[in-house]
């Protein structure tokens, strides 16, 4: 299974292609070495033969044919060089002197070089040795053949051949083995990732890719994929939580509306009663629709890229306007609402969204800060960037609730009876995330202080 995958893998195919290319180059290089070595060795042998022939020719010139015959006889006498081959033949190629029994039929043109197989010059011998020879026709019509048993030469080139062939095949085998083992390792790691993906598709997001603890690039990939899966799992849980809450928060008003309509359907029609009923039902519907628009607004902020619409906005101005807008609401609850702002604190952002976020924080502070309390909106610029803080002196929230209040539909128990849908702080969180701002909730002793810290423009 793994082997079949290894052989199919693209890494392996790539390795094969490179082995082919390098193999061809090595073969060409070694072929050239072989060819030039063999040519050099042969040339050396030929020069020796030519020198011998020249000596004999000089003997002939100075001592005549008889002198030549004597010299040949001397050279072929037992105990002399074994490798030299000589033959003097008359004009009709009949042997006169030498260690060759007959004139080889292949030799016809004087001055040319010949390679003769064993059968052609030593019919009784086996395959070898090979004879390298040339001949010259003397002025009196006799033919002088000088040659050399080329067996040494042949054995030498054969050795080179064997060495080269062995080397090349060893290279191919090793390269093949290396590429299979490397590919197999890659395929094994990928297969682990694939297996995890398959089991996630089948049985849910619980599975993770096993790490080998080698800290190599594969482990890093697996780690990254695993943390991505963690994030996806968390998001899925959040989505599920949200849809459960939507279902719950929808059922309540829908049940009320249905019950009301059912009652109206059954009883005789009465204009005053029906009117009130329709009015109440429309109010309930409006609440449901408001919840929907809040939800879509949050998800649009979270998913959409609105940074292209960012402008320079003055947080101080926004804070003052929000405070002014909420002045009436604060008055109703006898809350003292004021703003402590630096004159100009600018950030890059979306005015509508920032206004909405600050408005939500102030709304919460007035709603939950307690009757006749004090709510302060502070805007300041410090070294790290701009900060906007909304503080109340109400009961605050317990430390362990701080991380939950930004979740959609999350409401503290004590706020269940106040109007609201638990989406306000989720919107604040979404807007903050869009602007790269950090939200902090701190104890205002007494009360709650909610801070939005914006990064300084140089950093963002």
């Amino acid at each position: 299974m793994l082997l079949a995958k290894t052989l199919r893998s693209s890494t392996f195919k790539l390795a094969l292609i490179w082995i082919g290319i390098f193999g061809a180059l090595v073969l060409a290089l070694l072929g050239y070495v072989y060819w030039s070595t063999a040519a050099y060795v042969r040339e050396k042998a030929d020069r020796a033969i030519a020198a011998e022939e020249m000596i004999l020719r000089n003997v002939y010139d100075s001592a005549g044919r008889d002198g030549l015959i004597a010299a040949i006889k001397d050279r072929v006498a037992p105990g002399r060089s074994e490798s030299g081959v000589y033959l003097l033949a008359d004009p009709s190629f009949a042997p006169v002197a030498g260690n060759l029994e007959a004139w080889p039929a292949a030799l016809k043109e004087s001055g040319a070089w010949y390679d003769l197989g064993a059968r052609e010059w030593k019919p009784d011998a086996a395959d070898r040795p090979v004879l390298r020879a040339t001949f010259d026709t003397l002025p009196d019509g006799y033919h002088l053949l000088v040659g050399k048993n080329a067996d040494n030469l042949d054995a030498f080139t054969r050795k080179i051949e064997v060495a080269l062939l062995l080397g090349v095949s060893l290279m191919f085998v090793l390269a093949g083995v290396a590429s299979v083992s490397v590919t197999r390792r890659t395929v094994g790691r990928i297969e682990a990732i694939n297996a995890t993906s398959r089991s996630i598709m089948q049985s849910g997001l619980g599975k993770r890719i096993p790490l080998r603890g080698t800290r190599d690039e594969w482990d890093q990939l697996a780690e990254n994929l695993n943390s991505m899966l963690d994030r996806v799992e968390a998001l899925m849980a959040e989505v599920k939580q949200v849809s459960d809450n939507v279902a719950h928060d929808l059922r309540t008003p829908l049940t009320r509306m249905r019950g009301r309509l059912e009652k109206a359907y059954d009883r005789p029609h009465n204009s005053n009663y029906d009117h009130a009923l329709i009015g109440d039902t429309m109010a309930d519907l409006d609440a449901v629709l408001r919840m929907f628009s809040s939800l879509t607004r949050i998800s649009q902020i979270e998913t959409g890229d609105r940074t292209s619409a960012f402008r320079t906005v003055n947080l101080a101005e926004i804070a003052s306007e929000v405070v002014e807008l909420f002045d009436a609401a604060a008055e109703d609850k006898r809350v003292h609402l004021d703003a402590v702002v630096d004159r100009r604190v600018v950030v890059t952002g979306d005015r509508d969204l920032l206004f909405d976020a600050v408005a939500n924080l102030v709304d919460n502070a007035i709603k939950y800060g307690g009757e006749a309390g004090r709510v302060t909106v502070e805007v300041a610029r410090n070294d790290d960037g701009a900060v906007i803080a909304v503080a109340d002196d109400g009961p605050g929230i317990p430390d362990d609730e701080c991380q939950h209040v930004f979740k959609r539909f999350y409401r503290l128990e004590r706020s269940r009876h106040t109007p609201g849908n638990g989406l306000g702080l989720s919107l604040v969180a979404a807007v903050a995330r869009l602007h790269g701002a950090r939200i902090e909730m701190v104890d205002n002793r007494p009360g709650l202080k909610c801070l939005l810290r914006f990064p300084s423009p140089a950093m963002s």
Partner: protein
Amino acid sequence: MLRSHTFECALHIDWERYEIMGEGRRRLLVIEDDPETAEQLVDFLSTSGYQVDLAADGNEGLSRGRSADYAVMTIDRMLPDIDGLAVIRRFRDDGIVTPALIISALGEIDDRVRGLRAGGDDYLVKPFAFAELLARVEALARRSATVVKETVLRVGDLELDLVARTATRGGRKIELLPREFQVLEYLVRNDGRVVPRAMLLQHVWDLHFDPTTNIIDVYVGRVRRKVDSQQAYPLIHTIRGIGFCVRAPS
């Protein structure tokens, strides 16, 4: 019960006023593919004093829009053949500048929506209250009409001096914050018409979103206390779930 009553009162009298005002039967083009929504729109807008033509898809809308002169058109954003925004773009390419109200089931956190509003068109998210639709159509229809430069606005015994930025009712000065004056001015300018909350926020605060809290109601509530308390009759009416309306008894 009491609030329901206000609601009925304001809506009813509203429609009557359009006929009293005798602005004539202006023509509207409604481009909407859902038959029931289309019927409701046509029915409602006709009752409100408009002559309404209906187109069931983008192409029909384009040909109708090119062949007649309309005061305003309402365009569904998701039509079966052409995107509603594309319909507007084609009208503009042809030099037809009729203001358009896009009606959409998509949210309004979208740069294109801002573009629309900046370009003199408007955007309304489904589902909507008919009163809000009418208010927006009215606002668009008026945009093309000439604006009279008044220095004093009057409704009933309320008088707004736009130069001195002061308000008096029955001769007695009403103490208003600058922003409160702006709110009252916008409502009085739209005297007799329903002003949705989002439109008020848009024109007075230059904010382009529909607040999910009741903060605008609370704010206008304070303006109303200053304007209407200890008076013979109320001028500022709340239209529940939609917005406000300034109206003197006829």
